[in-house]
């Protein structure tokens, strides 16, 4: 990369000088930290389920280069190509979400995965960045043309994957989609009156989930009143942070990874807390905050409404997913099965987020002028 000259006019050369390199560095840094954490946390989990010790490590090592490549390829796209790719991704994931309901495997009470050649595909992960880009495009069209058809289209772009995700049920993804779309509509300039109405609707939707989705009920009950049920996972998680203290017990010396079934995915941050301590965890949170805030900042640059909406939507996907995971692990919110972006093991999530951040890198590249229609 050092060898790339300013005047290099190749695709890669132009990419290198226009891409947000600090954001790229932060994302690659997260992937590297994620690799370390999967290597540390997953062998215990693998042995626990009688899989080969390095089962998850091998898969992660296999997928990570492809994920990084996907991010790179996506970041080469023009905004127009990005929209096309997002459309294809949304159609594909919608079909996959329908297929999940038909042929999907049920794991722990939810039907979220389709087995594909030894891997399980979680289509809802891919729907999120695709929805963010397409909803941004539809909202931009609406704002520019004043045609309410685009507004309805934007809502459809949101409501179709949301509905397909919610019935699985995958409450976590539904909540993230709602938050992302809500943020985009808010930024697009919806009246505060209606924004309030939407907030109410979202809250009552969550209330319905609490009333009618049993595992949501149970999770929320246990969060509000820890004495009401088994809080084993969250107790273990908090104790891991306490045991790690400032500098941690040292790599490999933690024991929570042997005690929690999701130590390599949903609770990987607790493993980091136990073995590497507070300082390392603050660094990880700081990188996440940097990625999210940096992406938002780039959305503010004078790139036009589409860039603003799509980039902030992608930042919200990444940020809300990170915050939901960190909040669950730290008992700030009810336990929610969601991976920590780029850190957790999980092929679908890794790929989907790599594509999403690839879109974000593509859309935030320096351009001579706004390229809403490029």
């Amino acid at each position: 990369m050092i060898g790339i000259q300013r005047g290099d006019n190749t695709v890669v050369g132009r990419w290198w000088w226009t891409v947000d390199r600090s954001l790229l560095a932060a994302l690659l840094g997260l992937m590297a930290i994620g690799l370390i954490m999967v290597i540390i946390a997953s062998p215990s989990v693998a042995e626990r389920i009688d899989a080969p010790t390095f089962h998850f490590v091998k898969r992660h090592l296999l997928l990570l280069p492809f994920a990084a490549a996907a991010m790179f390829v996506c970041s080469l796209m023009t905004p127009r190509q990005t929209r096309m790719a997002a459309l294809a991704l949304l159609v594909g994931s919608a079909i996959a979400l329908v297929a999940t309901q038909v042929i999907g495997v049920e794991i722990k009470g939810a039907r979220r995965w389709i087995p594909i050649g030894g891997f399980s595909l979680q289509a809802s992960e891919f729907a999120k960045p695709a929805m963010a880009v397409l909803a941004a495009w539809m909202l931009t069209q609406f704002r520019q043309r004043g045609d309410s058809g685009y507004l309805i289209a934007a809502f459809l772009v949101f409501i179709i994957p949301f509905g397909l995700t919610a019935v699985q049920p995958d409450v976590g993804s539904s909540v993230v989609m709602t938050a992302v779309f809500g943020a985009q509509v808010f930024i697009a300039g919806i009246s505060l009156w209606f924004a309030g109405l939407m907030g109410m609707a979202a809250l009552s939707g969550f209330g319905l989930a609490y009333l009618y989705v049993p595992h949501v009920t149970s999770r929320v009950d246990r969060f509000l009143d820890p004495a009401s049920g088994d809080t084993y996972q969250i107790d273990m998680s908090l104790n891991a942070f306490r045991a790690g203290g400032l500098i941690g017990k040292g790599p490999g010396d933690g024991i929570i990874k042997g005690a929690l079934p999701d130590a390599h995915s949903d609770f990987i941050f607790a493993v980091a807390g136990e073995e590497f301590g507070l300082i390392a965890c603050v660094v990880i949170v700081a990188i996440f905050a940097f990625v999210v805030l940096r992406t938002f900042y780039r959305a503010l640059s004078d790139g036009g409404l589409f860039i603003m909406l799509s980039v902030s939507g992608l930042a919200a996907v990444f940020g809300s997913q990170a915050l939901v995971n960190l909040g669950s692990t730290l008992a700030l919110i009810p336990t929610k099965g969601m991976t920590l972006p780029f850190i957790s093991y999980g092929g679908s999530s890794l790929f989907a987020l790599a594509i999403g951040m690839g879109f974000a890198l593509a859309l935030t590249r320096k351009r001579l002028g706004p390229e809403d229609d490029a």
Partner: protein
Amino acid sequence: MSETNETLFAAAEPPSNAADPGLRADTGGRARPRTRFNLPVRVRLFPGRHDAQEVGRSRLFVTCAIFAVAFAVVTMKLVDASLYDPARTVRLDDSRAPEALPEPEQLRADILDRNGLLIATSLPVTSVCARPPLVRNPVATAFLVAGVLPELNAAAVQAQLERKAEFVWLQRHITPKQHQALLALGEPGLCFEREQRRVYPQSGLAAHVSGFTDVDGVGIAGIELAYNDVLNERRDPLRLSLDLRVQRIVRDEVQYAMDRFQATGGVGVLMDIANSETVAMVSLPDFDPNDPGTASADARFNRATLGVYEMGSTFKLLTAAQALEAGKATLSTKFDATTPIRIGRHTISDFHALNRWLTLEEVLIHSSNVGAAKIAELSGPAAQRDFFGRLGMLKKMSIEVAELGSPLAPRRWSEVHMLTIAFGHGLAVTPMHLSNAIASLTNGGVYRQATLLKQPGGDLAGGERVVSAKVSASIRWLMRQIVINGTGRNADTALYPVGGKTGTAEKAMGRRGYDKNAKLASFISVFPINDPKYVLLVMIDEPKPRADTFGYATGGWVAAPAVKAIIERAAPIIGMPPIGPDHPARQMPILQIEKRPETRT
């Protein structure tokens, strides 16, 4: 964006691109949609008066700020959880690497014999415990743990692991190999504690002296109990007066005598008469202090210090010493032993009645009960009680074990009591009491409290004179005559001149009087009698008569041979060259005055 209210229900009008310089869209020349779809509701969702991008910027800033605040909250919670949050019910912070196990702060002090041999020592050991909440699979873990620790069975371990407890012991005091094997299981729910374990390398040899500790190292018997705090605090080992070589011999011989006469118990005490150091103290049956849990209550009972017995004729030495010391009689004073004494319901008679007048010397040699009673009559009950008191026979001893028996003395010391106590009935004391008293009477006449601790060399300060040196010499003379001419012949050995006194007591049966068939056969001896160094008591509990002892199970037949064997085996070890039959030292002049300097008092 604050001006939305007035436009909420305003007619929807298309946002003007001309008014939106920020939206430089549609420059691509693509066809505009021909028809425009409007929501049927006349609600203005997106007020369009302002530059959409300007509104977007400020709202994006708000969104961004919300995320920033959320990350700040996560960071604060992270700091709180890592540094300040109290641990939850499941504690993890103790399960660190095993090398971090702390050594016990200070090992309990060793107990050594007088030559420095180990009687009790403490070893640092590991114990295995478990934290049930951390055990993932109790069934599998129990199976693996039981495989390593053969004393446990899997079902019991599983039950322990499934208890709703924070902490359970699985097994105390495991071996390093077992520790290693358990670590290799990789079970995070197992934990290990560094502890100390009390070990008694001599097994049962000095069990009643050392006593033992519980699994936590707290003394619960013997010196371990009496000196519990001392042993925990001191760094130097505690050195006893015991000589394990002699202890071994005494135990062998007492056991042999017990086996020979099918006795229920036995006592052997060997004491230095000068400073009252206890060189050997055996109570049989005994037990292995390494595993006291399996011992019977009888085996754990210390007959030497806790058991009180009516010792019988050995008391006659005290009776004689009292009369001699008071000047009421000499060795040749005659006493009427022609007829048994009748007093109230009681009759005092002799075992081998000679039915004639006996000198004091003859009373002792033939062990005449009637004669002893007559000797006691010279001084009366008060003087007898006073004399026994000065010999320490009426109060609990203060030797260094926890098990100390209180003498059973008559509350009102009547004439009858005086007569029976004269020949050893009516006052029950421990064997240690008697040994201590005889040591005082033969060492020149000074009473020193018996001890189990090695005394600083040559320090004979203190002590109370109980009889004169002359009386002490007379007692030694009497003891020698008893062995040469009297009931103690079986204790005589060609190697050393021995003095002694037999005792055969019928055991008291509570209020029902005495059991003629349950006897205590004892022999108290002093050797070498020409220059006494040690007092040795052997007492055999309930010996059964044998054909080759002519149906006798008396002190002379049961205990005296054991005394002889012990002296022959032990005396050379403790630095006494044999004194053969022709040795001039054997020619002990009658009433030879104590030659050793009186300064020893």
